[in-house]
């Protein structure tokens, strides 16, 4: 039997009391940010019941067990309702792995280093943009608000750096699954993102001087099926979060690059996919095109944060289960997050958006996004997102990012709550030999993030 000094009721009372006072103070036993800064890990900030699944469930579920319809009731509060329903009705299951307490394993090393180094240096300027308080210049790297006090600080940090690398390229495969469990579409392509500011690895840093007015360059392109091959879109984000990005696209049929209106961020990119540009990393739109960002809940949560890299698969393909054909859900490893913070935001810059609000869950330890639910204009739950991150190391197998193992997302699932359709997306090793997942490649800008790059990708 596990004896805990502070029981579940204590934890719940603590979270509720903070919420009632409008206070966000992460950590239960001790301030989280100070604990991390002092020890590099989180154990001293949380009671035992929040540090292991055994502690939380009083031993009913153990590390290594699967959460299935038989035992999901014990952890129902740790997941989104649609995930619970999928486990109960569609055979979804989640494997529980050991909770990670070392924060350096929960983000790219350089990002976490910069977070610790630059703690307390950030502020919002009069325009609402995150700046370095000392000189009013754009942010200088890492998480600007590692000890968040408001919801907007969580959203701002997430918007500033999506993948937490200065540059990331993800070779992706997406599967659109019908509600009846049948696969409908399979797409392959690539996603590139490169920060112009807040750089911790790529020179010049912390800014790209010529592009200091930009936040990021981002593109997405498709390689298959054939009728979408070469189709691509590129966003150029301004640092000013009140401004919409510029949006250019290469439409294979047109054989040329065209400018597109940038406010259309709620349209399906491809048939069958429950994905919008707006969904990217939970913060696919400029920060101030949404508002609210109120903290509405806190508590423990389940999410994949480790052991999710499919190292043994040739192209890092993940395996599946569930649904009528056993193909609807990724095989997913999850772990107990001691504290997640849920915030809620409304789209104020998009009067005609099909979404009325979104709820975002962040891991309090490193402010990484661990879940999202969007609601339609009637206020009904619309789509739900969950996923898995990991360090890319398994035994003696590693993928290196500079001096440290690569950290990134591995897969995510977007569930259309209203139709039952599911979109599964995974990061794979490579597509078409040349498009390789990775980080901080200095050539990424010219390979994926210029109009020339789109033209070159636009094969026909």
């Amino acid at each position, binding site marked *: 039997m596990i004896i805990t000094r502070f029981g579940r009721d204590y934890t719940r009372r603590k979270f509720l009391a903070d919420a009632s006072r409008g206070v966000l103070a992460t950590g239960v036993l001790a301030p989280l940010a100070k604990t991390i800064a002092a020890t590099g890990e989180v154990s001293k900030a949380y009671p035992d019941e929040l540090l292991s699944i055994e502690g939380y469930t009083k031993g009913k579920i153990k590390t290594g067990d699967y959460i299935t319809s038989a035992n999901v009731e014990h952890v129902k509060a740790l997941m989104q309702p649609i995930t619970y329903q999928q486990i109960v009705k569609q055979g979804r299951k989640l494997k529980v792995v050991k909770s990670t307490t070392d924060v350096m394993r929960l983000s790219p090393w350089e990002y976490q280093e910069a977070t610790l180094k630059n703690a307390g240096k950030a502020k919002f300027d009069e325009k609402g943009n995150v700046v370095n308080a000392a000189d009013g210049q754009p942010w200088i790297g890492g998480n600007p608000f590692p000890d968040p006090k408001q919801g907007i600080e969580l959203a701002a940090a997430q918007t500033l750096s999506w993948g937490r690398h200065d540059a990331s390229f993800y070779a992706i495969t997406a599967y659109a699954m019908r509600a009846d469990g*049948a696969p*409908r*579409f399979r797409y392959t392509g690539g996603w590139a993102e490169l920060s112009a500011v807040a750089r911790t690895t790529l020179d010049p840093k912390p800014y790209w001087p010529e592009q200091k007015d930009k936040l990021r360059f981002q593109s997405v392109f498709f*390689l*298959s*099926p*054939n*009728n979408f*091959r070469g189709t691509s879109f590129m966003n150029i984000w301004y640092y000013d979060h009140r401004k919409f990005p510029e949006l250019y696209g290469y439409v294979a*049929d*047109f*054989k*040329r690059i065209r*400018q*597109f*209106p940038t*406010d*259309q961020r*709620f*349209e*399906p990119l*491809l*048939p069958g996919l*429950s994905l919008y540009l707006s969904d990217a990393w939970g913060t696919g739109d400029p920060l101030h095109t949404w508002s609210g960002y109120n903290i509405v809940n806190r508590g423990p949560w389940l999410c994949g944060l480790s052991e999710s890299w499919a190292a043994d698969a*040739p192209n890092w393909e993940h395996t599946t289960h569930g649904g009528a054909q056993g193909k609807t859900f990724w095989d997913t490893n999850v772990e107990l997050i001691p504290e997640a913070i849920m915030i809620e935001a409304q789209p104020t810059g998009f009067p*005609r958006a*099909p979404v009325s609000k979104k709820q975002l869950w962040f891991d309090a330890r490193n402010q990484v996004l661990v879940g999202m639910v969007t609601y*339609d*204009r009637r206020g009904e739950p619309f789509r739900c997102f969950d996923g898995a991150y990991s360090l890319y190391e398994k035994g003696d*197998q*590693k*993928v*290196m990012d500079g001096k440290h193992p690569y950290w990134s997302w591995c897969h995510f699932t977007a569930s*259309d709550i209203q*139709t039952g*359709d599911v979109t599964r997306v995974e990061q794979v*090793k*490579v*597509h*078409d*030999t*040349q498009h*390789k997942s*990775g*980080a*901080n*490649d*200095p*050539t*990424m800008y*010219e*390979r994926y993030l*210029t*109009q*020339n*790059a789109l*033209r*070159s990708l636009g*094969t*026909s």
Partner: protein
Amino acid sequence: MKRVDGKLRRSLYALAIASAFAAGPAMSQEGGAEPSSGGGDFGGGGDGGGGGGFFSDMGFAFSGFVRFDSAFHTDSDENPNNQRTNPFNGKTTGRSAFPANGTGALNTLPGVGATLGVPLVGQALQNAVNNLITAAPGVPSTATRNTPRGHNDWNLNQLRGKFDLGVTFSSNVQMYSSIRTIYDFGNYDEFKRSDTLDYAGNPSNPDGFNQRKVRYFEYDDYKDGGKSCLNYLEICGDNYMADFTSLYLDITAGPVLIRAGQQQIAWGQALFFRIFDVPNGLDLRRHLILDDALEEYADERVAAPGVRVTWQATDQWEADAYAQMFTPTIYPTPNTPYNVIPSQFSVHETWSDEHRGEDFNYGLRLRGNFGNWGLQFIATQRYNHEGTFRWVESGVVRDLPGLPGTGSIMAGTPLEADPTGVWSANEWFTYAGQVRLDGVEGLNTLVREFQPFTGLLTGSEVGDNITAAARELDLFFGVGGGLAALNTNGGGLRGHIIHEYHKEEIYGAGASYVVEAEPGSLLDQLIINVETSYIPERKFTEKSLSRNFIESDESVTDLVMEKYHRWFDDFPATYMVFQAIHKSDSNLFGQHLGCQGGTGGDPGTEAAATNRKTKQCTDEKKGGSTDVVLAFLQPFPNYIYRLSGAALLDVDGGLLVQGGFRWSPGNNMTFDFIYNYIDGDLYGDPNSNALQNIGWADEFVIRAAYQF
């Protein structure tokens, strides 16, 4: 079957070898590689993988689709440009009456016989005609084209494939190829020589490779088909073609992209209207311009070997230059469903003999993006892809029926005696109006520019006297059909024209602006784009097919407004576009505006049922031509279905409406349903709007594709 020439064939072999060479490493990377063990590192750049070297990333990617396209003909209108569907087939058409005053009266026929008494052949002809007139003075002549009238249920039944191969040598060097294959099942009322008989009951014998048999894709030398297909890197046969729409090497060097090889180049923001989209011509052999409007000219734009260099000079400015081998626009072949050149005429194509492998087009574009603003400037020197047409010596040594020895004279004229030609002045004027030519001046030019041969055949100019022109033409056509052999109701003189290409320069400027207004309003994120070009001394086909082409300075301007707007909560945004184009000197299809509104008819005869109006083309239309487009695309939730529509209005009275529906059920299948409705006679003179040219092409299209 024709084959690509040797040099190009070697290129194909090189591609195959490269592909085979690439296959091994590719398989090892995609299919069999283990994750890095104990410290593999992909973080070092595009050449990454830790291995380095030119071939470190080598591999290939293969994809494509197979698609069946069918177009069901939805109305009774038939393409008048084909032998089987010539509206004069089986219809008795009046021709000018023989003079009533007997022998010698030929000289009294206005427009005929001005040179009589001089030519030997003219005298023989006069004698023959006089005999006829003596036998039947004052009796109107009639002509009835004896080709059985066809009726087509289908406009298109084609199986096509697209096979793409990408070979990666390194992150900076890649090769792409795309092969298009087409097989046309040809289940239309095809023309056969035996369908049309001469005065003696023998099958027609038109000169010209494509005139004697329906060949859907072969198109080069009119005489014998030539030694190659028209496109570079194409093989073709009667019912099939395969070509490389892409075969190029991409080399990226910092901000510079060099693309060398067979490629398409498209410029400009405007869709469908080709203001800046000037580098490539169009291959119209498969489905004319009637594919899904949202695909623009994806299947039509002609690829050609060339080099294109794009340089991102600054964050704002991009320079884009190309040099590309000139390849012309390719028109549908004679007697095929979408043929746009009347098949009574043989077109002598000059591209292969005079330009192939020798002439290049060049262009430079500067493009700047400044947030909501964009600027473009272009300058090109090119051969106009559409080219010009004029009369040309037929070279066909074939006697006029009953007039031995006339073959060598006929060879010096643009005429050829064959029942697949024109049978009456009525038919002549009808087609002249249809193709925007002047029937009277056409005759005068034919006579004037091919002396002494036309004079030897009693041809004479008639000034602007349409009655005289009709009588002379009726006599000629009658003679071509065996009048001298005492066949009064026969007909048939084919015309020969030559297709030539001319250099021109195009200068253009454009600006775009993205409107920022109240979020969610109709104006917010509206993209406004204006493009204008100026083409000094552009050459156009002269309205009489004279060798003295029209030369004028043309300007082309368009306005494009695009908008995505979400009308419904549950539906994705609707894409809407408005476009308007104004051309100062030509219509949408490049025909000069100097001869619009001719409606055919033969004032010297009884009116024919097919032509109730009688009018020659009007003077040059003032004010140019204007076309307007409204189009939309409405995806359904989750994009499984897509509804689209487009309307093209020629403000002079033509309308093309296209409705489309796409269903993407998954499993790599896609189905398209498209309806094309064309009204070339909405109002005004039907021959004054460009769409009248294809007013017969109403159809329902189904496309079923499987992608891999």
